[in-house]
């Protein structure tokens, strides 16, 4: 469960480039809910996920995860509670390390790292079984460097890595945006499966309204640092992309916008 109370984030405070990126976000996300997040470029989606993960600290407001007040916690400290997959397939893993080394890193998330071997025999076997379940044939490439994998393979492994340490919250920031459509579909299906099997509380930022409505239980729209739309259940089931666009236009004061302007970024 995530509770966000009136958080504000300002970049470059006091400079000419000052940017009030989050302007009072209030939200409660119950355990196990799968939330999709949309919004135009610069709306504050990444900043919002970053503020949950600890990359940016809210200057005002409160964030609680599973009952713990994490408002002042930095990223490494929150990592035990929160797993992430980034947009850039290069960002979420270490290209120069092997697949199994990346998995070992993720498996120790939120734990104290000591002098025990990162890759003991038992653990290797566990990793092999887990990665075999992806159905990508990667179980025979555990010693390959991560950098040798394709973008889609890297995102798939990153998703798997997100489940290795048993954290219950998954943050996905346009994790399929850098992939070709077929690969993106594969990764999305994998996402759905992993979220369901591990009962993860998930926030998924996407640039596709279609995806936002097709996946998950609830959809948020961010605009200029605020949540301007929050739909779930029947209301959401009745929504279509044109409806969503119309709702969005209304929020902006009746200005007509095309799907594209929302898609960019």
């Amino acid at each position, binding site marked *: 469960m995530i509770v966000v109370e009136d958080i504000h984030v300002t970049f470059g405070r006091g400079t000419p480039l000052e940017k009030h990126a989050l302007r009072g976000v209030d939200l409660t996300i119950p355990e196990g809910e799968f939330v999709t997040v949309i919004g135009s470029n610069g709306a504050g989606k990444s900043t919002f996920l970053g503020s949950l*993960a600890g990359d940016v600290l809210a200057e005002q407001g409160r964030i609680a995860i599973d009952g713990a007040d994490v408002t002042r916690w930095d*990223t*490494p*400290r929150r*990592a*035990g509670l929160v797993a*992430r997959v980034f947009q850039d397939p*290069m*960002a*979420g*893993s*270490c*290209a*120069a*390390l092997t697949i199994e*080394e990346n998995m*070992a*890193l*993720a498996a*120790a*998330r*939120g*734990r104290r*790292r*000591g*002098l*025990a*071997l*990162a*890759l003991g025999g038992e653990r290797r076997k566990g990793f092999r079984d887990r990665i075999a379940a992806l159905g990508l044939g990667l179980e025979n490439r555990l010693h390959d*460097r991560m950098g040798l994998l394709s973008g889609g393979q890297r995102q798939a492994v990153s998703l798997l*890595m997100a489940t290795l*340490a048993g954290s219950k919250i998954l943050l996905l920031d346009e994790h399929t945006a850098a992939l070709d459509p077929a690969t993106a579909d594969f990764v999305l299906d994998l996402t759905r499966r992993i979220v369901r099997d591990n009962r993860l509380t998930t926030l998924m930022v996407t640039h596709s309204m279609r995806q936002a409505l097709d996946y998950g239980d609830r959809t948020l729209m961010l605009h200029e640092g605020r949540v301007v739309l929050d739909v779930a259940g029947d209301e959401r089931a009745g929504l279509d992309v044109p409806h969503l666009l119309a709702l969005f236009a209304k929020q902006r004061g009746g200005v007509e916008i095309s799907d594209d302007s929302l898609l960019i970024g």
Partner: protein
Amino acid sequence: MSEIALFGAIEIGLVYALVAIGVYLSFRILDFPDLTVDGSFPLGAAVCAVLLIAGVNPWLASLAAALAGAAAGLVTATLNVRFKILHLLASILTMIALFSVNLRVMGRPNVALLMQDTVLTPFYGLGVPDHIVRPLVVGAIVAVVVALLARFLGSEFGLAMRATGVNARMARAQGVDTDAHIYAGIALSNGLTGLAGALFAQTNGFADVTTGIGTIVVGLAAVIVGETVLPARALALALVGCVAGSILYRLAVQVALSADSIGLQASDLNLVTAVLVAVALILPRLKAKARSTRVAR
């Protein structure tokens, strides 16, 4: 090359192998260009020499030298991590400061070790000539360091340190306290360098504040030579490569200096080494450029 010169080159190569491993840790594993070694090497030599003269056990004196080097590394890491000073500049500041510190430690620019016991003393007079005993003992120490370090880098903590250097953002997202790993890695790097300084003092019989000049370049040269002759992906092999690179570098220097026809003097060493490292750094770029222009056509 005479037999004495050959073993001498191997011996000094083994001493500097510890520097090479330290440089590999900072430059390659942590991606932290650290020049502190120019100060931590003579610091290790100074601390060890002064303690030996005070009658301290040579192993304890060597350990103290390593700890002093590690402390110097911590200063550099603090300047960078805590106070956000660029890593190169942070390390130059520490290096310059250490020049004064080393003079203070020794009380004068150089200290001779004449009758003091060293870690080598127990092994002299066992029937093996002294000039072979020295590389054997230093080699054994280097072997132990390589084994321990390979094991350390394979641990969960060591893996997190490697991730810190490769992709700090990812490491943090995986719960790695990257700052702590930079502190630990730079301390370890300079600790090894301090130990190298201690061994230098004990094998050569003196400590001198000027011996530090160019340590970083020699260490880098050894790393680069090692990567060329042993282009290994496996970490343990890469460490062995540092050792091999350091020895090969010293042998090459010895050959160059002993070939009268080239006309090089010992004092030309820094110039030759700097040119070698520069060429080694430039070559990959030129190759890549040549490749891309070929593709462009």
